[in-house]
C-alpha cells in the first residue's frame, strides 16, 4: 500500500485520492505537526500545497530535501506564482510535478498514479473532460437563472422590511416562504451550498411563525442580506464552470474607500457584466486583501483615502507592486489633487463619482482591455477541454493569455476575432485535423509568419514529418510537461517580438516608431472619446539639433536623442504612448490629462534633459534644451489628425519663439463643437466695467468675452456642455440671473477653477461674501467702488502668471512655460 502525505488547503484531496486510486493510503497532517511528520515518517509520495503552511511551505520542502533528496514530491501553487519560484522548485528543489490551482482531482490522481507506477483510469462516473462539458452547460443555466434568483431575493427583502415595520401581511409572507423554499432547493445545485443554508433558515423562520420580536426580524434581514451576497458574488459557479477553457473574464477589482451605497451600485453594475468587485473600507484593509484577492484593478476613492493618508503615497504603493496594479481614481471633483501628480504616481484614469456606476464599470473594463492587449495572446485548438484548461493555467503565470477553442470548425472565426501571437494546435481532432488547419493558416499571407506549435500524442516519424511539412514551427509531445511547453512558447513569442520590434521600434531611442504609435494614439483617443476623458498630445524635439550635429559631431547629436528617448521612457508609463516619429520628432500621448496637465507633466522631462551635461567630439561640454507643442483632446481637436496638427502648429510657434519653450495649441480649434479657448471672460452686469476690460485686452491681442448674465455664464463655463474655457475669469458677485457666489460654487465643483484664475468683484472687501468667495477658490478680490485701472492691472497679472497660484509644486522654473503664446507677447 502506497503511503501519501498530503499537506494541502484542498481538504478533499486525501479522500478523493483514496477513492480513485486502489492501493493508496492518503493522510493529512495538522499544519503545526507537518515538519515533524515529514521528518519522522516519510511517505512514498508527498504532496505540498504552497498555501498550506504559508509562508513557510517552501522552507519545509527545503528541509525535507536535506534528509530525503529523492523522495517524490508534488508541489501545488497559485497560477500567479513567479517564474523564479517555479524555477527554484523544479531545478533546485527537484520537485517531481508542479500543479497549479485550481487542481482537478482527476489531474492529481493521474499524476500520483504515474509517479507511483499505479494503474489509473478516469473517474468512473464521468471523465474530467466530460465534466467540463456538463459544467459549461450548467453555467449557462446559472447565467439564465441568476436574475430570477435575484427577483426572489427582492421579495425576501420586501418581507424583511415589512417585518421590521411590523406589517408583514399573510400574502407577502406566503410569497416569501415559497421563494425562500425555491432558493433553498436550487442554490445548492449551483454550488452555492451556503446560499441553500441561508434560504432554509429564512424559510423555517417564515413557516414557524417565529417572527414576533424585533431581534428575529433583524435576523431575517441579515439572512436575506447574506443570501444576496452569496448569490451576487457567486464566483464558485461562474469561474470554474465552463468558462475556464475560453475567457476566464477579468479577475476581481478592488474598491478602496468608497461609501457603502456606491460600493453596492458599482458591484451590481460590475456583476451584470460578469465582473466581480470587492470592497475595502480603507488602505489598511486593502493591503490585507490584496495578495489573496489578486485583483485585476483597484479603484480608489481619493477623497476618502486622502483624508487618512498621503494620496500620492497610496497610489505609488499600489502601482509599484509587481506586476503594477492598474489604479483608477474616483473623485467628487472640486478640490481634487492634481491630475499630473496622480498620473505620475501611477493612476490610470479619473472618474467623477457623479458618473453613472454603469459607465464607471464600462470605462474600467475598457482600460483593462487596453492593458490586457499588451499581453501576448495564444490561441490553442484542442478537442480536449482538459488540455486547454491545463494550458491556460500553465501560461497564465508568464503573462500569456490563452484562448482555448475545442471546436476546430470555429477556428477561423476565433483567429480573426482576436488575432493571436502564436497558435497551438492538436493533430487529431474529430472534424478537422491540426495539420489541415496549419496549411490553411500558412496559405493566408496575413498569417504566414505566426508561430505554430503542435501538441500531440502521436510521435511516429511519418506524422512528425507531415506536421513540419504543413508549416509548423515546433512540435511538443503529450502528455504536456509544463515547464518545457512554457519555455518553448515563450521563446517563440520572444523571437516574434524581436522581429516585430525591428519594424515597429526605432533603434536609436528605443521608442516605438510612427507605424506602431499612431495606432496606439488612435486607440487611446477612442477610449478617451468613449469615456469622456481628456487626452494630451505633445510634439517635441531637441533645440538646434542641426547645430549640435555640426558643432559637436553627429555621434553627439545621436547621444542627445538617445538621452531624450531615455528621459521619455522613464517619465511615462506604458499606458502613455511615447514615440519617435522622425529624426528630431518625438510624440507623447497622455491619456487622462488635459492640455495644462500635459504641459505640467512634460516640464519634468524638459528639466531633466536640460540638467544633463553632454560632451562633444572635442570634449567640450554643453547642455541641450527642448521645445515643443501640446494639444488637448477634446479642447483643441476632436480627432487624431486635428490634434496632431494643433500640436505641430504649437511646436512651430515655439521654435519660432526661441528655445526651451513648451507651448499649448492656441485657439484655432478646428472643432466648432468643442469649447472655445479664450484668455479672459468677464461676467458682470455692469456694461461699463465689461467694455473697459474687453477694450483694454482685446486691443493687446487677447481673446476676451463678456457674459452679462449669471445663468448664461454658468451654461457657457460649467457643466457637461462647456462652451467656453477662459484662463482668467472676472466675476461680479452682484450678477444678474444667477448670483456670482452661486456661479463660483458651480465652477469650483466642476473643477473649472483648477485651471482658471477667478477674480471676484465684491460689494465689500470684508464680510461674509468676500470670505466665501475666497474660500471657494477665487484667486483675487476687488471691492466696490474700485479704480478700473486697478482691475485691469489685476487681470494683466493673472494673464501673465504662467501657472496658477496654489499649485504647490512650483519648482524652480528654468524655461518659460505658458499655456498660450499670446500671453507672453510683448506689451507696449
Amino acid at each position, binding site marked *: 500500500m502506497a503511503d501519501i502525505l498530503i499537506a494541502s488547503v484542498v481538504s478533499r484531496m486525501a479522500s478523493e485520492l483514496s477513492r480513485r486510486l486502489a492501493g493508496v493510503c492518503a493522510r493529512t497532517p495538522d499544519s503545526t505537526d507537518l515538519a515533524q511528520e515529514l521528518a519522522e515518517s516519510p511517505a512514498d509520495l508527498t504532496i505540498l500545497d504552497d498555501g498550506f503552511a504559508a509562508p513557510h511551505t517552501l522552507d519545509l520542502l527545503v528541509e525535507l530535501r536535506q534528509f530525503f533528496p529523492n523522495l517524490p514530491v508534488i508541489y501545488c501553487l497559485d497560477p500567479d506564482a513567479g517564474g523564479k519560484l517555479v524555477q527554484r522548485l523544479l531545478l533546485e528543489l527537484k520537485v517531481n510535478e508542479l500543479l497549479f490551482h485550481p487542481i482537478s482531482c482527476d489531474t492529481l490522481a493521474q499524476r500520483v498514479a504515474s509517479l507511483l507506477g499505479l494503474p489509473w483510469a478516469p473517474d468512473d*462516473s*464521468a*471523465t474530467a473532460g*466530460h*465534466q467540463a*462539458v*456538463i459544467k459549461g*452547460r*450548467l453555467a449557462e*443555466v*446559472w447565467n*439564465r*437563472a441568476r436574475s*430570477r434568483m435575484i427577483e426572489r431575493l427582492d421579495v425576501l427583502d420586501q418581507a424583511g422590511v415589512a417585518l421590521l415595520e411590523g406589517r408583514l401581511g399573510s400574502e407577502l409572507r406566503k410569497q416569501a416562504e*415559497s421563494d425562500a*423554499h*425555491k432558493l*433553498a*432547493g*436550487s*442554490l*445548492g*445545485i449551483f454550488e452555492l*451550498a451556503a446560499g*441553500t443554508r441561508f434560504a*432554509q433558515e429564512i424559510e423555517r423562520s417564515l413557516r414557524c411563525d417565529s417572527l414576533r420580536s424585533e431581534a428575529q426580524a433583524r435576523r431575517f434581514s441579515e439572512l436575506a442580506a447574506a443570501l444576496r451576497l452569496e448569490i451576487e458574488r457567486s464566483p464558485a459557479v461562474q469561474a470554474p464552470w465552463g468558462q475556464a477553457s475560453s475567457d476566464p473574464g477579468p479577475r476581481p477589482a478592488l474598491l478602496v474607500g468608497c461609501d457603502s451605497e456606491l460600493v453596492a451600485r458599482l458591484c451590481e453594475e460590475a456583476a451584470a457584466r460578469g465582473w466581480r468587485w470587492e470592497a475595502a473600507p480603507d488602505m489598511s484593509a486593502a493591503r490585507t486583501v490584496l495578495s489573496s484577492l489578486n485583483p485585476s484593478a483597484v479603484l480608489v476613492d481619493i477623497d476618502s483615502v486622502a483624508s487618512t493618508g498621503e494620496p500620492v503615497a497610496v497610489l505609488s504603493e499600489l502601482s509599484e507592486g509587481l506586476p503594477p496594479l492598474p489604479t483608477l481614481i474616483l473623485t467628487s471633483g472640486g478640490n481634487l489633487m492634481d491630475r499630473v501628480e496622480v498620473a505620475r504616481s501611477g493612476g490610470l484614469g479619473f472618474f467623477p463619482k457623479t458618473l453613472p456606476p454603469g459607465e464607471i464599470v464600462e470605462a474600467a473594463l475598457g482600460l483593462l482591455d487596453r492593458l490586457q492587449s499588451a499581453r501576448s495572446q495564444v490561441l490553442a485548438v484542442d478537442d480536449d477541454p482538459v488540455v486547454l484548461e491545463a494550458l491556460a493555467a500553465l501560461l497564465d503565470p508568464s503573462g500569456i493569455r490563452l484562448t482555448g477553442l475545442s471546436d476546430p470548425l470555429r477556428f477561423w472565426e476565433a483567429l480573426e476575432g482576436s488575432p493571436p501571437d502564436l497558435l497551438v494546435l492538436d493533430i487529431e481532432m474529430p472534424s478537422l485535423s491540426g495539420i489541415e488547419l496549419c496549411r490553411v493558416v500558412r496559405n493566408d499571407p496575413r498569417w504566414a509568419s505566426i508561430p505554430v506549435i503542435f501538441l500531440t500524442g502521436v510521435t511516429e516519424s511519418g506524422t512528425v514529418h507531415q506536421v513540419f511539412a504543413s508549416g509548423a514551427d515546433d512540435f511538443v509531445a503529450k502528455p504536456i510537461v509544463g515547464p518545457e511547453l512554457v519555455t518553448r512558447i515563450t521563446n517563440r513569442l520572444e523571437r516574434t517580438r524581436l522581429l516585430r520590434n525591428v519594424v515597429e521600434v526605432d533603434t536609436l531611442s528605443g521608442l516605438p516608431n510612427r507605424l506602431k504609435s499612431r495606432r496606439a494614439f488612435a486607440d487611446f483617443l477612442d477610449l478617451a472619446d468613449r469615456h469622456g476623458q481628456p487626452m494630451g498630445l505633445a510634439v517635441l524635439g531637441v533645440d538646434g539639433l542641426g547645430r549640435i550635429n555640426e558643432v559637436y559631431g553627429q555621434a553627439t547629436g545621436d547621444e542627445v536623442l538617445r538621452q531624450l528617448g531615455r528621459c521619455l521612457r522613464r517619465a511615462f508609463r506604458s499606458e502613455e504612448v511615447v514615440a519617435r516619429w522622425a529624426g528630431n520628432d518625438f510624440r507623447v500621448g497622455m491619456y487622462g490629462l488635459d492640455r495644462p496637465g500635459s504641459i505640467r507633466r512634460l516640464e519634468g522631462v524638459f528639466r531633466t534633459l536640460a540638467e544633463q551635461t553632454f560632451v562633444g567630439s572635442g570634449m567640450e561640454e554643453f547642455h541641450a534644451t527642448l521645445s515643443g507643442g501640446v494639444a488637448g483632446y477634446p479642447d483643441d481637436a476632436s480627432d487624431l489628425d486635428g490634434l496632431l496638427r494643433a500640436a505641430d502648429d504649437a511646436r512651430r510657434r515655439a521654435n519660432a519663439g526661441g528655445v526651451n519653450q513648451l507651448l499649448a495649441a492656441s485657439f484655432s480649434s478646428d472643432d466648432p463643437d468643442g469649447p472655445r479657448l479664450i484668455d479672459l471672460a468677464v461676467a458682470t452686469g455692469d456694461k461699463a466695467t465689461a467694455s473697459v476690460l474687453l477694450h483694454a485686452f482685446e486691443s493687446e491681442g487677447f481673446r476676451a468675452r463678456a457674459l452679462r448674465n449669471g445663468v448664461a455664464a454658468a451654461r457657457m463655463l460649467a457643466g457637461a456642455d462647456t462652451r467656453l474655457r477662459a484662463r482668467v475669469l472676472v466675476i461680479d458677485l452682484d450678477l444678474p440671473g444667477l448670483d456670482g457666489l452661486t456661479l463660483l460654487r458651480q465652477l469650483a465643483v466642476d473643477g473649472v477653477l483648477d485651471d482658471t484664475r477667478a477674480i471676484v468683484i465684491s460689494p465689500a472687501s470684508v464680510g461674509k461674501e468676500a470670505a466665501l468667495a475666497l474660500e471657494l477658490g477665487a484667486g483675487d478680490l476687488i471691492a466696490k467702488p474700485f479704480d478700473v485701472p486697478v482691475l485691469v492691472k489685476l487681470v494683466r497679472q493673472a494673464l501673465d502668471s504662467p501657472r496658477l497660484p496654489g499649485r504647490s509644486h512650483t519648482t524652480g522654473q528654468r524655461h518659460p512655460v505658458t499655456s498660450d503664446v499670446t500671453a507672453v507677447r510683448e506689451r507696449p
Partner: protein
Amino acid sequence: MSKRILIIDDEEDIRDVAQISLEEMAGWHTLPAVSGADGVTCAQVELPDAILLDVMMPDMDGTTVLARLKEDRRTAGIPVILLTAKVQVARRPPFGGAAGVILKPFDPFDLAGQVARLLGWNLPVPGTES
C-alpha cells in the same frame, strides 16, 4: 434503446439542470413538463421509463400528481421519484407509492447516479449511449 425520463417541475432552472445531468451523465432522454397537469398528460401519452416529480408546485402539487398517476392503469407501473427540498418528506417513507425521494438541492453530477441506485438500473458509461 435509451431510457426516457419525464421531469415534472415548475421551475425552468431545475428542469434544465436535471435534463443536462441525466442526458450528459447517463445518456438518458428527458421529457420536460412545466406543471403537474402537464406532467400527468405527458406521462399518459409518452409512457416514460421513470418520472422525476417536484413536490411543491403551484397548481397541482406533487402528491396529487402522484395519486393521479397511480390511479391511472397506464401510468401506475411507472416508477416515480419525488424531488423535494423538504427534509420531512424525505424522512417519511413510503411516500404514497413513490419509488424514492431525492432531496433538493441535488448534486448535478450525481443525479443520474441517485436515480439509477433508487431504481436498480445500471448507469451507462457516459458518452457510449448518447
